[in-house]
């Protein structure tokens, strides 16, 4: 990450605009135990109280990093019940499609955020329909399986 992804100007700009960035060495036992970390890179999205909202383990290329942590920030907004902000981030990942491997997760959580904002289950069914038609082999299509019981 330190030689490819973080030096990338687009990544640096994205992090600066969207996050307060902190780097902690894996030798910091107090922090490693606090967040139950066992491998590097492990990258977390936290709120101001230090509570975890999203986690990725392993290397990410720059484009995938940006899309992944757009979803990560969306998950943070979702947990904060800022549903409109969450939906906007998931929509951006889906529409811009900078990293196709991240899109199914964004579709799943767009459905969740829209449902939590409107209480209309059709958004969950729409997520299921999109995932099974376009991304049927992904874990996110499987996770959306129960939503097929919701009337279209």
């Amino acid at each position: 990450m330190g030689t490819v992804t973080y030096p990338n100007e687009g990544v640096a700009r994205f992090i600066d605009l969207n996050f307060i960035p902190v780097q902690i060495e894996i030798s910091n036992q107090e922090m490693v135990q606090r967040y139950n970390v066992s491998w590097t890179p492990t990258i977390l999205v936290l709120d101001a109280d230090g509570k975890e909202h999203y986690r990725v383990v392993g290397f990410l290329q720059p484009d995938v990093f940006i899309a992944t942590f757009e979803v990560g920030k969306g998950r943070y907004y979702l947990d904060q019940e800022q549903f409109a902000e969450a939906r906007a981030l998931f929509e951006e990942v889906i529409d811009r499609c900078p990293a196709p491997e991240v899109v199914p997760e964004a579709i799943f959580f767009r459905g969740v955020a829209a449902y939590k904002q409107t209480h209309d289950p059709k958004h969950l069914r729409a997520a299921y329909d999109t995932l099974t038609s376009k991304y049927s082999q992904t874990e996110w299509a499987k996770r959306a399986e129960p939503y097929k019981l919701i009337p279209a």
Partner: protein
Amino acid sequence: MAMQVCWLDNLAKAQETARKTHKPILLDFFNPQ
């Protein structure tokens, strides 16, 4: 000059800044070796 990530090395400081800016924290555990 290319833009670089300005990493903090202290979570408490980041939490203080996160409260003021309403931004989430990106916490990267790394191996410097």
